[in-house]
């Protein structure tokens, strides 16, 4: 999978169509700047910052991404180990099935709605709910 944001010039602002669908408007455009902003936002230690900074090609998290990471303990823990995993989880939450986290890289994390309020949508499966909605509309449309 080709990582998004790769190769952008430092200081550049994302202006592609992407910003129309993701509400953050401004992207962290520089791979080099991302670790520092993540660290500032999440209040990470110096060691953790160094760890993030040492790894090449960090994902470009949006401000919305950072808010979600900060709000979910599991994501906060994983982002220092492997920010790409977190990035993929966030993109999966965006509904892009093609970018779902693969079992090979998925860490063993149990989603607890209290700790991870935004991850609750991830395991959602549609067939039963889709059938329910179909039946509801059928009932409304039935002639009396």
């Amino acid at each position, binding site marked *: 999978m080709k990582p998004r944001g790769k190769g952008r010039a430092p200081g550049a602002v994302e202006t592609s169509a992407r910003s129309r669908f993701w509400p953050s408007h401004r992207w962290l455009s520089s791979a080099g700047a991302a670790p520092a902003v993540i660290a500032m936002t999440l209040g990470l230690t110096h060691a953790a910052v160094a760890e993030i900074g040492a790894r090449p090609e960090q994902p470009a998290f949006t401000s919305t991404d950072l808010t979600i990471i900060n709000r979910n303990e599991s994501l906060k823990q994983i982002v220092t180990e492997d920010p790409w995993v977190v990035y993929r989880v966030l993109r999966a939450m965006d509904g892009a099935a093609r970018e779902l986290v693969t079992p090979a890289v998925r860490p063993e994390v149990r989603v607890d709605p209290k700790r991870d309020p935004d991850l609750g949508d991830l395991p959602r499966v549609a067939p*039963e709910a889709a059938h329910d909605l179909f039946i509801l509309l059928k009932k409304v449309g039935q002639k009396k």
Partner: protein
Amino acid sequence: MTHMVELENPLREARPPVSAARRSRSRSIVRTMTDPVLANDIFSDEAAVEADLLVQESILWSRSVLSTRLVEASASQDAELCDILRIEAMYQFCEFFYLLKARRIETEEAIRRLADIHNQHLDILSRDPEKMKRLGLRKDRLLDAIFTADTLPRLVETWCERPGQIDQSNLARFFVTIMSTETCRKLVVACSEAGFLSRNRSPFGTVLVSSTGVMEQLFGGVLRDLRLRISAIQCEGAKS
């Protein structure tokens, strides 16, 4: 929140009761699967398996071709937009608008009835923790999606103003069991750019959407093609 007393499960009538014979058949299938000699029973009729495979192929084809046709019909060929039109949730999004049209849910009475049945469904679902867990839903999200004394009048008013017109947040309420609010918003934006939805801001600052009819036509076309394909398979099966 509208107060509801002694609600009837809106899905109860629609689903036929499971007969004792059907229950027994289900148990028999489980026994068959655990018996190594009988495990391949479903595969013993080769012609039937061939026909089954053609049905499966048709179903997969229909899911795939809908994405292709949506992208082809899109007013913009922007790569990011086309990616969003291809996501799984788009199928359900199109299906919803198709069903509104096909079931002729157009009048004020119909939208009130839809909201009422939707509320009853969510109320019952919110008291069924097993099903909520199965669907990956939280109670607070379900309660947020119930049409209240505040939100219901706006839903009806918007609908009456222009049949089929709906507030984006109300649209997300109808989709609460299917997709997240964010996915719904993203699809609305994408469909608006593709020319499938018109999207305007109301004087009150809310976003109003209404279908241009393209999605319904495309979904209906795919459904009809699927039906014809499957009918043809049944004919071939009858010949053999």
